């Protein structure tokens, strides 16, 4: 493979969304050379789709907010399955990460005092989300993109070359992650990628690799995720000896568009509800009042009158149940539709038109107005939207050290953002994703830089690289065979129908059989055409990874015999304090995924002080409560 491009960098960041760019900035600021690999063009990552905002307890709108309140909300939202240390770091550091964006040129919406404005969101006690209308993700990705450019401009002045220390490889997809050494000595040595435009391979030798590849949404048919979300980082980490934890927890965002069919799944931001929008069924009933679960009974309004008063007087009224955590709202909508009280296209109604004046709607929710007008021909200032659940986010991710984001079991490998696991527990709160990207992106970049400073040199094994290239090119050697698009469509339909919002043992087992079959068929894919910008070939390279992560999700879902957050078992509908102590870790053993039970560390007493004994008793065993000094006695 003599025509292959070869590079050596200190740190290779796989993924160019919020987490990847933040990690790259940190590693470059620590003086390391950094390559950023992006499947798409620079600045197009899935982060642009984030609408609502960045959760950070800056207390600009309500002075009662603080990191402990944010920590508590995050744990509550995740049904106490979160890794407490990640939730703590996240809550503590999010404000600094937001203010830093402002110093790089971000222009958030303002309060009257000229501070960054903050909005209400599901599960957050106080207005907490820094935002720019409903296009916050775009603002964030553009700011980070422009910060990278600013660093390149510095390098140009110093070294005469924009790309002296940070280079963005746009439309360059990673296929393989390489390690060297055995057992304890095994560590990362580099990455193989291909240029999407030319189809030529590129190898990167690097001591440290940061995975920032996002999620897995393309395993499901109805999803708000883009084509890039094929679980690349999840799969690569498992292949390198790491584990994925919590893979049974998949967030179905309650409000995706349901019509027209071609945009089914496209996201309708939670801000619609945060700003006053209400959910109603075909009988015109605000049904969320019927679905307030026991654990949240004293936190949410029980009458429409109180709920409506909350928007203007949040200190003396409880919040409307439309703002329950996402898993609760998604299940409620699912139940309403199944009971025959749905909207014409199989969703429910989300109405802001009767709640706010048209000009306020257009100012607060400009891209929603635009999206419905352009794609559905619906004017949301005049009529309700039809919405239903859509696969949005995976709480599960690579098992990492909570402080350093170092992947457990794979030295030199780091993971940040959606691909990382632990922070969100069994359910993520809206707004906690963008802050996750920033807080742990920075931590991963810093840790990777530290690691590079002390680790000895590595070299890529050319024979392994060449073997990986031969495998990647195999689909070209067949003149007839399977169509990659058909395999992907079958996987998406299967996961949607059998491992979706509501799960049962029998259906998950059926899904696993289909996945096994699709794994075999993937080995028989034939692609037509050449190497240049060939999406059929690109998909054939994504599919094995997609199947691996889908298998991890299905096997984990089969193992967890309870219902919690983004995992609902019809055959085990209760939440169990025993299962709360357990997290499931997926590893590759031979050719299949094996799921092992691990224990979740108990929140330390000083953090447990955030919660009262009554609340903790809804989640924890008596033994745990005793340990925390919150027992009955």
């Amino acid at each position, binding site marked *: 493979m003599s025509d292959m491009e070869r590079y050596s960098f200190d740190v290779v960041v796989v993924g160019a969304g919020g987490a990847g760019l933040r990690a790259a900035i940190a590693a470059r600021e620590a003086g390391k050379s950094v390559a950023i690999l992006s499947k*798409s063009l620079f600045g197009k990552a899935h982060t642009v789709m984030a609408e609502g905002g960045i959760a950070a307890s800056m207390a600009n709108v309500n002075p009662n907010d603080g990191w402990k309140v944010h920590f508590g909300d995050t744990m509550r939202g995740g049904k106490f399955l979160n890794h407490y240390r990640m939730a703590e770091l996240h809550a503590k550091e999010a404000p600094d990460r937001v203010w830093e964006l402002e110093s*790089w040129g971000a222009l958030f919406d303002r309060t009257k005092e000229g501070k960054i404005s903050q909005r209400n969101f599901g599960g957050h006690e106080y207005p907490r989300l820094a935002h720019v209308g409903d296009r916050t993700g*775009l603002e964030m990705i553009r700011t980070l993109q422009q910060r990278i450019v600013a660093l390149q401009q510095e390098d140009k002045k110093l070294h005469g070359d924009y790309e002296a220390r940070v280079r963005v490889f746009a439309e360059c997809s990673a296929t393989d992650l390489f390690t060297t050494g055995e057992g304890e000595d095994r560590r990362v040595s580099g990455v193989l990628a291909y240029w999407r435009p030319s189809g030529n391979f590129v190898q990167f030798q690097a001591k440290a690799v940061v995975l920032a590849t996002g999620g897995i949404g393309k395993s499901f048919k109805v999803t708000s995720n883009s084509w890039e979300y094929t679980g690349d980082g999840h799969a690569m980490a498992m292949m390198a000896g790491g584990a994925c934890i919590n893979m049974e927890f998949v967030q179905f965002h309650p409000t995706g568009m349901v019509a027209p069919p071609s945009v089914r799944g496209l996201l309708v931001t939670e801000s619609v509800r945060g700003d006053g929008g209400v959910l109603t069924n075909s009988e015109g009933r605000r049904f969320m009042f019927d679905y307030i679960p026991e654990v949240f009974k004293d936190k949410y309004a029980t009458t429409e009158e109180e709920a409506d008063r909350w928007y203007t007087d949040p200190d003396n009224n409880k919040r409307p149940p439309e703002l329950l955590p996402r898993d609760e709202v998604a299940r409620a909508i699912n139940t309403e539709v199944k009971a025959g009280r749905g909207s014409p296209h199989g969703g429910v109604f989300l109405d802001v038109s009767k709640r706010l004046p048209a000009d306020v709607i257009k100012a607060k929710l400009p891209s929603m107005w635009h999206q419905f007008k*352009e794609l*559905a021909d619906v004017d949301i200032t005049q009529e309700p939207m039809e919405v239903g659940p859509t696969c949005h986010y995976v709480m599960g991710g690579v098992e990492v050290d909570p402080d350093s984001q170092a992947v457990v079991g794979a030295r030199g490998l780091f993971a940040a953002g959606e691909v990382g696991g632990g922070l969100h527990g069994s359910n993520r709160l809206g707004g906690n994703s963008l802050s996750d990207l920033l807080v742990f992106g920075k931590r991963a970049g810093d840790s990777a830089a530290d690691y590079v400073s002390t680790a000895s040199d590595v070299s890529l094994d050319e024979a392994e690289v060449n073997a990986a290239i031969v495998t990647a090119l195999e689909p070209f050697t067949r003149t007839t065979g399977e169509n990659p*698009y058909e395999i992907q469509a079958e996987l998406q339909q299967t996961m949607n129908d059998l491992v979706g919002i509501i799960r049962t043992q029998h259906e998950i087992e059926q899904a696993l059989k289909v996945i096994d079959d699709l794994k075999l068929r993937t080995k028989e894919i034939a692609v037509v055409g050449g190497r*240049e910008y060939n999406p059929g*070939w690109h998909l054939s390279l994504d599919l094995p990874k997609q199947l691996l992560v889908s298998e991890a999700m299905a096997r984990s879902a089969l193992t967890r015999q309870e219902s919690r957050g983004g995992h609902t078992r019809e055959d085990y509908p209760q939440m169990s304090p025993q299962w709360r102590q357990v997290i499931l870790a997926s590893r590759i053993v031979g050719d299949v995924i094996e799921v092992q039970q691990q224990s979740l560390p108990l929140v330390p007493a000083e953090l447990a002080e955030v919660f009262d004994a009554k609340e903790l008793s809804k989640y924890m065993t008596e033994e745990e409560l005793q340990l925390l000094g919150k027992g009955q006695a």
Partner: protein
Amino acid sequence: MGYMGKFRLWRGDHGTGSLVDYDVEVNDGEVVLDVLHRLQATQANDLAIRWNCKAGKCGSCSAEVNGRPRLMCLTRMNTFEETEVVTVTPLRAFPVIRDLVTDVSFNYEKAREVPAFQPPKGLQPGEYRMQQIDVERSQEFRKCIECFLCTNTCHVVRNHEENKKAFAGPRVLMRVAELDMHPLDTVDRKKLAKEELGLGYCNITKCCTEVCPEHIHITDNALIPLKERVADLKYDPIRWLGSKIRVRSDND
């Protein structure tokens, strides 16, 4: 509901290519990108399309539909007659990579020539204070999804490859305006806009504004004010100096 739509697509690479006809199923509520995805999955697995969000938020699927620069994800099929042939070709102002995908690196290279945001020295993160009314002007330009339809449409470069050296295009010039109107930025980029980025080439025909999927008033709100500021710089140094030392009041 469904019907067989007639499509004519440009297939080929940077060297050669031609328009190829396809008959593809079209269903209720679909956009051009949906139909091309169906074509890709069933008849032309290797059809090169660049796309990401399919929601008009990422600006990846820019192409020309019946000669008009559009995002394929925002072009609804019900805007065409069922018997009409829908012709989709790659952006004209940029080199073709393959089929409907073009090399837009020109825009990123030009963007790199614009000095980044520079806050006042000593202003600490968290201490920034700006009024909503003051940030709104730049916020309009920050809605840009970098689809580059504006630059593709601009006649300065659309049919004049030779102008690309001296002209950065509306997207990048709007970025200069955005920074210029940022309440806390301290860098003067007017000379750069005029001498390096070719602001003078723009003769405000508003073609860029017309094709912007975000409906940003590129010409009226970014380029014309920028031209005025550059003109001030040239003809009225006293006024320029005044504008730099004037203290903004909170309600300004």
